[in-house]
């Protein structure tokens, strides 16, 4: 039998690692989008609308809240989907998904959750890749 190069051979293992990497990328992109929207909503839009003495700034705040708020709702659903697709591939427990879902509703916490999730998945990928050799 010829010597096989694990990294270029299209084995099931490589496909699996690729799948995890793609799922991780999808999740990270969604986590950042949703996280930034939430920060804009809670830390910019709301204070503008409710705390600003200037009525025109208030209207800007109200407009921001309407558009960002509606977008955030839909993108949050996609974030949950991305977390599910990732969790399925790396054998996360339901507790991880719940933690990510809840953290996605708190402004800065969503970035913390993304950090932890990414570290965890990268460890998993490293294990997968070392097990092939």
């Amino acid at each position, binding site marked *: 039998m010829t010597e096989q190069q694990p990294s270029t051979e299209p084995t099931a293992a490589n496909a*699996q690692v690729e799948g995890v990497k793609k799922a991780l990328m999808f999740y990270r992109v969604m986590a950042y989008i949703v996280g930034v929207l939430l920060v804009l909503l809670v830390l910019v839009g709301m204070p503008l609308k409710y705390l600003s003495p200037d009525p025109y700034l208030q*209207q800007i705040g109200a407009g921001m809240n309407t558009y960002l708020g509606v977008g955030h709702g839909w993108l949050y659903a996609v974030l949950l989907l991305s977390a599910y697709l990732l969790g399925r591939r*790396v*054998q*996360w*427990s339901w507790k991880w998904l719940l933690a990510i879902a809840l953290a996605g509703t708190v402004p800065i916490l969503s970035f913390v959750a993304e950090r932890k999730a990414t570290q*965890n998945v990268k460890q*998993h990928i490293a*294990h997968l890749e070392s*097990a092939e050799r």
Partner: protein
Amino acid sequence: MSSRSRTQALIWSIGLTVTLVMVALGLWQANAFQASGRDAMVTRLTGEPEPLQDHLDGEKGIQSAYGLPVEVTGEYTDEPDLLAGIGEPYRVVSALELADGQILPVVRGATQLEPIPPVPGEEVTLTGILLPTDPDEPAPAPTAGVAPGVGYTEDPSSLPTPGPHVQGGANPEDLTMIDNVRLPEMAQIWTRPMHAGYLTVDASLAAKNGLNPVIVPVPDTAEGQARNQGYALQWWVFAIVAMAATVKLSHDAGRGTGFMAPRTNAGTDNGPTEPKSSRTTEMEDQHDD
């Protein structure tokens, strides 16, 4: 009951509750008052005036008259006028005493801060639109809406212009200014018992008394309605997600696999479980033999 069945029952109870709550939230959004279309509101605002007293005598009281053209009879009190607004033109609000002794705030018209026409001394009969109270957030005077007694307009310059200036009234600097016609605030200033609503007089009446006509903004627009329906849809999508999650978790719990597996990648220092790939490779090796 096995522990797996108990877990499944727990998953279903929580899942169904969450799903039902989300469905209810969606229904609430879809049926919010704002969902009535603009045309329906305009029709209501431009009907035939009804005597306010009929509504006051009725079961629901003044609430049944909100957003309706009404006719009232009363005498203006000696309470000083208020100027309402966050910029020109300011609405002139006067206290009209009705037959029952309570005050009805009346927006007699709007002014560009010239001397305000005095209130008529004798008993008057007014027609105009009755509103509950302005929203908390003050807004600039609307340029589109319903002019009482005229109809929906987007062109304020088409409304009757103020007639000859009536002398003898107060100077604007002497009057109290408020951001908005908010009844709770005005009740503190005027102190007399007040009805839970205020009248904006007909455009022609305002003009006859030397003031600019006031446009009543139509309470909610199609944009607001679309937004509420958008929120309703979001809640229902989340409800579907909640049901799907319940089914999936219950399925996993029943078999002890997937997201409910007893020992899974929980992100501890122990690291992930043995990856599937190595097991697959072992099986392939066995088949090769």
